[in-house]
């Protein structure tokens, strides 16, 4: 079973040299810590920055320089700043190679719900709807089941949707899954020590698993 950092670490392997990547809030943010050495990657923050750097050193924080999570950050040599229209312009025109974000639910046809729980205070979708509707490659990083123990990989989402037919891959504490074009979750890798049966039990949507699904390599 993976912890949050394990999920982030596994997702980082999906990032290829030369990628522009948008990281959502939560586990996705941790992915930045595991980008392999020697790989040139540029992080986009949708409030208007390409080339997001690490947090500033204490005392060097700049209130004018934040990321989409409102955290103080830094730029890097080669960074570029732009306005919100251009930021979502480049997202819509698919200049961002990979988007990684969290989810409350993903359906077996790739729908995602991650912004609203009826009856609870709704904070808003922020840039999530734009990102999922536009990105050519979206990976979801999330826990496999919710706090009530219910599967988050579902035949159909029960919560209000953020986007439809858009999620390509999911990484949870239990494994790595492709969302198949024809529908269904294809188990690609098991998390260390996790069996296919355990994964099947935790997955409400249709699960496809070969007999010899490999265990994730650390």
């Amino acid at each position, binding site marked *: 079973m993976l912890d949050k950092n394990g999920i982030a670490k596994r997702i980082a392997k999906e990032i290829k040299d030369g990628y522009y990547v948008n990281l959502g809030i939560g586990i996705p943010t941790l992915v930045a810590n595991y980008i392999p050495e020697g790989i040139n990657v540029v992080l986009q923050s949708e409030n208007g920055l390409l080339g997001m750097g690490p947090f500033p050193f204490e005392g060097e924080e700049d209130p004018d320089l934040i990321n989409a999570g*409102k955290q103080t950050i830094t730029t890097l040599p080669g960074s570029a700043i732009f306005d919100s229209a251009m930021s979502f312009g480049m997202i819509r025109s698919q200049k961002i190679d990979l988007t990684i974000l969290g989810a409350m639910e993903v359906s077996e046809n790739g729908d995602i719900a991650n912004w609203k729980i009826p009856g609870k205070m709704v904070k808003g979708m922020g840039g999530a709807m734009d990102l999922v*509707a536009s990105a050519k490659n979206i990976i979801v990083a999330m826990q496999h089941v919710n706090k009530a123990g219910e599967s988050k990989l579902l035949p159909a989402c029960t919560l209000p949707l953020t986007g439809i037919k858009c999620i390509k891959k999911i990484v949870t504490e239990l494994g790595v899954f492709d969302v198949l074009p024809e529908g269904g979750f294809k188990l690609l890798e098991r998390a260390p020590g996790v069996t296919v049966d355990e994964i099947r039990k935790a997955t409400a949507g249709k699960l496809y698993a070969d007999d010899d699904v490999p265990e994730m390599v650390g």
Partner: protein
Amino acid sequence: MINKVVANADEAIADITNGKTLMLGGFGLCGIPENCISALVKKEVKELTCISNNAGVDDFGLGLLLHKRQIKKMIASYVGENGEFERQLLSGELEVELIPQGTLATRCLAAGYGMPAIFTPAGVGTEVAEGKETRNFNGKDYLMEYAFDADFAIVKAWKGDTAGNLVFRSTSRNFNPVMAMAGKITIAEVEELVEVGTLDPDHIHTPGVYVHRIFQGKNYEKRIEQLTVRKVD
């Protein structure tokens, strides 16, 4: 050049009356027009419709207007950091329209660029699409979204000249330039007001033609919402 300078925030917002629609720049608390917000609080203007990516925090930014019940309707993409907002929303005192952040930005751009509507895939198949025209281009569905129609845009820039040309600093740029283009009347507050000829024409983010009033703000607090730092090793 045409001189756009007014004395201060009070003068800049003097004709903002009850019931007007305002756009306010900023992302979180970054790049918000602090002086104008304070002046609006002081003026006690009410029943405002505010278009802004966020709604401030309890005691800063648009939270100050919420606290005084000056906002009737909030059009935003994310309003997560504000307890008073939540209270008014749940009690029905406050109308809220949540729209995708890119749609928000592009509806500003559309207004500034004289385009009555734009197409975006954001929200297709979700409740955001309800009641909207969906149209397929090249095999992909898009929603048609209308340009905003705001009485005033209020933005905050780093530097500005007397002709209204604006330069923004770092990510405090965010929604400010697109909103500056979108207001029927655009008010800019700047940290430093300079003479014409000081700013490099090649590096002006918002040309003065879009700005109707400009003034040098004061006492910028520039509050940080999420202070995240590294320790020096």
